[in-house]
């Protein structure tokens, strides 16, 4: 299987501190690639560079063979690349269905005037979007909540809603920033199963996560980062035995220690 996402040499410094230092990794369709490392290792920065929210100082991001570095964030969904955020960033005052429909914005053809005058083409499009959004909600077990205000949902449901919003446009690659942070054990289990189901659909997934048991259970490949650089890369079992990783994790518990 070929690489869908190839990231190489990503470097970014904030006032002399290197947040990313020549980071190189890749992700394949139908695989889950996890980015792990202690706080401040640069995992979220890496995702932000890929999703167009942060512009790195140097490096290359190839998506499906095309250089996407420098494209604005809003262009990504059209290419088939979506993401979720560590801090949810739900559209709290809209209902659940509307939140997911925003995820389809990139597919809308009708313009400003059509929207104001509610042309038939727009109505058809609205119906298509609503149906598509409902399908996605059903897939994630959120269909019953479609009419609820997003901001008022329990945290666990909001996390799944964030997933729905990223999934609805049928991306080929999804970047997940800490999808189970703050969830209880049962909710984490559900989320893990959903992530595996997405892999079954053939999506490429890049997972940033602190929950090691989840990472080790679902990942096909694990990239270990420290101080903005990669220190190990491989299948979970191999990475776990990697001496530098063991050192970085001070014994390999769930808690992260300082870098070696």
């Amino acid at each position, binding site marked *: 299987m070929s690489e869908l996402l190839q990231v190489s040499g990503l470097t970014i410094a904030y006032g002399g501190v290197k947040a990313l230092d020549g980071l190189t990794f890749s992700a394949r369709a139908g695989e889950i690639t996890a980015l792990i490392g202690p706080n401040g290792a640069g995992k979220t920065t890496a995702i932000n560079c890929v*999703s*167009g*929210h942060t512009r790195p100082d140097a490096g290359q991001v190839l998506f499906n063979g095309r250089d996407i570095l420098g494209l*604005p*964030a*809003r*262009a*990504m*969904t*059209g290419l088939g690349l*979506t*993401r979720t*955020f560590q*801090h*949810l*960033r*739900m*559209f*709290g*005052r*809209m*209902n659940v*269905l*509307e939140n997911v*429909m*925003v*995820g*389809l*914005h*990139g*597919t*809308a053809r*009708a313009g*400003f005037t059509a*929207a*104001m*005058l*509610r042309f038939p083409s*727009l109505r058809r*499009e*609205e119906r298509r*979007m*609503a149906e598509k959004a409902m399908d996605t909600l059903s897939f994630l077990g959120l269909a019953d909540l*479609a*009419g609820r*205000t997003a*901001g008022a949902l329990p945290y666990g449901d909001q996390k799944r809603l964030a997933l729905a*919003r*990223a999934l609805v*446009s049928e991306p080929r690659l999804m970047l997940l920033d800490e999808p189970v942070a703050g969830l209880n054990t049962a909710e984490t289990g559900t989320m893990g199963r959903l992530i595996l189901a997405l892999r079954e659909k053939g999506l490429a997934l890049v997972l940033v996560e602190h929950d090691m048991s989840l990472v080790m259970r679902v990942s096909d490949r694990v990239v270990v980062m420290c101080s903005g650089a990669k220190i190990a890369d491989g299948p979970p079992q191999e990475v776990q035995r990697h001496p530098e990783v063991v050192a970085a994790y001070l014994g390999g518990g769930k808690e992260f220690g300082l870098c070696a």
Partner: protein
Amino acid sequence: MNLTVQARRFMAGLLPLILLVGLTPLVVTNAYYLNVLNVTALNVLVVTGLNLLIGCAGQISLGHAAFFGIGAYVSAILTATYGVNPWLALVAAALATALCALAVGAPTLRLKGNYLVMATLGFNIIVNVLLIQWDDLTGGSGGLTGVPPLVLFGLPLDTDYRFFWLAWGAALIGLLPARNLLHSHVGRALRALHDSPAAAASCGVPIEGYKIKVFVVSAVYASVAGSLYAHYFGIVTPRTFDIFKSVELVTMCLVGGIGSLWGGLFGASFLTPLPQLLHVFEEHQDIIFGAVLLLLLIFLPQGLVGRLEEALARRGIGGAVMPGDSLEERP
């Protein structure tokens, strides 16, 4: 709640309103009250546009009195001085206003932060001074007189009663495109935008472009109201379009409920006659007006209608057109 239900609910709210407006002239025959109602309708039109901007783009304009004024003056000058057909003048005025809005909005709406408030405030003052100083064209501080009335199907709309139908017709019809926009992908995107720009961008929303377009549209609402104003009163004076008028317009949005179309309708209908009512108190008018506004903003920041919509939504009867509680990003 699905979208067609929202649309039906909006229409269900609109129908009694149409009925109410339709019956009003049967009861209210006093020219003075009709005049206040007509001005109210024009304010409703401006506030609807302004609410689109505030509610959608999360930006305040303190320049809408200027757009209102540009509409009025372009219409007045073209018809009174150059004899152009009033309807044609109205369209020309709207185009001119749109260009001005583009010139002010395009550079400032690309920036983070509330630069639009500052720019529109400056713009309003400049326009106001120009209206006073450029007296060859505008008639100076005395204003421009002799603006002909609008003619609809051969009928000149030269009485308060006749103009009532046009003003309220425009105000109610003006609600529809605004409502349509709010409940389309564009409206959702704009609302998404002020909850989280980063997430909206990830969903493919062209942020700056939408903000600029909605600003231009809202300025055009003000312009059309201004043109109607000029033809109704037959005279335009600079004082009508100063910075305090802009503040008053934004206040109408805030009192009703930020970004809520019903709220704007209510805010304009409540605040337009208020100074007339307060006229009884003459000297203390500003104190009462300021105090009422202050108390509302401190204790009822979601606005009167916004509060009602929230209460309804909590009971599940819901359907805030756009709840207007906090515009800050949630943590």
